């Protein structure tokens, strides 16, 4: 390890700070890099990039490692933000963290690190790698492989995830505190990084023109209320419908063309449930699709792993999974990620239905 150069992505948080500290202890030649992806303030949310950067730099100096700031704002804007906005505009529910990992952290960052002479890269993700394969983290509650399914094994082969072997976040914080890292008690970041705790809705309303339309009851067609744009809603969503009381209602369907949001208060509504999900835009960590058969699937971050029967199209790119029992409908655009035991194999993007 001595003489092996590792470039660590440092966000100023406890996970990536401890990552850098552990690698220094293991004898690597470590350089910390803060990726400046986004620095814009939004209404009600002051982007904390400058504070995060200062925290990251403070840790780097304490560890006695080099520290640099790489500007990725242009790439982030194109690959993550534009993708996010375009997807919502089309009535999809994208996973911006998946794109950020594929395109920025394990794309631009990995490439720049290599150009700067790094042998390996490292991040503070909760995941593990073994010879280019992706495994779930020791801490099942924090496992972030759901966001890493599009990262190719060739990149993972030269990636270190030291935090992935630690059994809990509490232990991560304790280890950081034991090393005198001031970020040990820094709160976890919430939600999509650039909109913070304010949430996506105000951001989307800045980016996409409001388009008021009807909220309609499933089955009866009765108009229950108005919305600001069908693109703001996601299948299965319960909160934020603003229908002025009444029973809890769920979004059954969003139609951005007709600008109609269909809801129901009946949880047994068949459109809320499905036994089969078709996926496109598949990516496999190992490069090729696995063989048809029984796998575990997850359709949300740290969501339940369910047994499915997967069938892969011979020409690649698409596949379908079947559940033994109906599950709640997967919103179009969401990631469907397949596992075999501990290993994350890759996945695809849920089709429209």
């Amino acid at each position, binding site marked *: 390890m001595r003489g092996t150069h590792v470039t660590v992505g440092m966000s100023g948080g406890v996970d990536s700070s401890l990552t850098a500290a552990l690698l*220094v202890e293991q004898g690597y030649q470590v350089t910390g890099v803060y990726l400046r992806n986004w620095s814009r303030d939004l209404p009600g949310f002051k982007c904390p990039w400058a504070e995060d950067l200062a925290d990251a730099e403070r840790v780097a100096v304490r560890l006695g490692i080099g520290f640099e700031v790489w500007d990725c704002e242009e790439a982030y804007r194109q690959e993550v933000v534009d993708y996010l906005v375009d997807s919502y505009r089309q009535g999809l529910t994208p996973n911006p963290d998946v794109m950020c990992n594929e395109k920025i952290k394990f794309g631009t960052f990995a490439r720049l690190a290599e150009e700067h002479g790094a042998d390996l890269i490292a991040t503070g993700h909760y995941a593990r790698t073994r010879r280019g394969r992706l495994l779930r983290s020791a801490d099942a509650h924090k496992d972030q492989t759901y966001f890493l399914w599009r990262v190719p094994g060739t990149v993972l082969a030269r990636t270190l995830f030291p935090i992935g072997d630690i059994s809990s976040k509490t232990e991560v914080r304790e280890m950081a505190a034991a090393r005198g890292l001031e970020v040990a008690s820094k709160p976890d970041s919430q939600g999509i990084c650039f909109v913070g705790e304010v949430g996506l809705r105000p951001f989307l309303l800045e980016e996409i023109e409001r388009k008021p339309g009807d909220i309609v009851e499933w089955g009866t067609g009765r108009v229950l209320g108005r919305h600001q744009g069908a693109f703001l809603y996601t299948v299965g969503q319960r909160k934020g419908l603003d229908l002025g009381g009444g029973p809890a209602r769920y979004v059954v369907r969003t139609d951005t063309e007709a600008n109609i949001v269909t809801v129901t208060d009946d949880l047994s509504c068949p459109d809320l449930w499905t036994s089969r999900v078709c996926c496109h835009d598949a990516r496999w960590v190992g490069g090729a699709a696995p063989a048809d058969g029984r796998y575990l699937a997850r359709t949300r971050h740290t969501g339940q792993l369910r047994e499915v029967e997967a069938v892969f199209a011979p020409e690649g790119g698409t596949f379908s999974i079947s559940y033994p029992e109906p599950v709640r409908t997967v919103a179009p655009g969401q990631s469907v990620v397949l596992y075999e035991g501990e290993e994350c194999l890759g996945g695809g993007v849920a089709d429209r239905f």
Partner: protein
Amino acid sequence: MTESNAHVTDSAGIYLDYAAATPVDPEVVAAMLPYLTDDFYNPSAPYAKARRVKADLERARATLAHLIGAQPANVVLTAGATEANNLAFSAVSGEVAVSAIEHASVLACAQAHPSCLTIPVKRDGGVEPAAVASSITPQTELVSIALANGEVGTIQPIRKIAQVVRAERARRLEAGEQRPLWLHTDASQAAGCLSVSVSSLGADLITLSAAKLYGPKQVGLLWAADGVRLKPLVRGGGQEGGVRSGTENVAGVVGFARALELAADRRSSEAARLKGLRNRLQQLLTSRFEDAVVFGPSKDRQRLPGLLALSFPGLDARRLVILLEQQGVSVGTGSACAASKMQASPALLALGATPEQAAGSLRITLGRPTTGEEVDAAARAIIRAVEQERERVSGRGGSD
């Protein structure tokens, strides 16, 4: 791992960034306190208690005016030096001229005007009166140069610059040109160590700040000569002659007056003491590191006594600040405002520093509480930090 934690006790809690902020003097606090509690009344209110507060406010204004040799009517109280500088620039709407090393509040105001001329500075940060003469044009309406620069400590020849400005004014008068021309100087950084007198400076507008004088933050003043017409930036109830509305900050102004009194009392002895300490610190550091670059004038009388701006080329000053902080020593890089934006100090670049020198530069400023022991301990801490960083930099990319 490094040994950065090994020496914490030696220099715990040494603050050397008095150009950024000063602790409020206990005497100033004592003067202010009654106006926060018992005498909280609105000075504009009609009853006797409020009128007494109004009288105290005016007494404080008179004290401030007296201490700078001015009439109270020419003093506008503001919420700090930045506002005072903004107000000074409100006096004109045409072309302005500033040196390239002015504080952000001056540069930003200048750039908001339709034309902004940059007056060149010498390598030591000095502004030559002749450079002012050749920079300004018949259209120039305001020249603004700080009495003492906050980043490198250069004391400017404001009196001689005022003569240049007066000569241009005389020319315009002869030529029948109506366009006004004023000289503004921000004396915030200077007032602790230099006497600020309206008549001896010869400027038309002068900014002062309580925050740099062991007084409260967000309290300052703009003195404006007769004939200068200030345009209000904050409108409302018409306080401060309509130039600056808002209920007067009575406690702040009373504290400001007391702070300026104390500064005036202690000025000459304090300046000599700080100069001695600063020179000792400079000697300790430059003798250890012969390649360290000291910014600012070489002559002590052209230099703010408590300020040492020096660079360790090849090092990153922000890293040094963090290492020093871990040893309990607080110092600045460039001005605090520039540092927060994480860019090389434009002022240092403007006076000819290389980007490498600018990136490696610390601003160390001593103040009233600074002792010789603190200076010695700080010097030791700085030497350790610089050596540690040099070791890291030289180890990088070499044989592992």
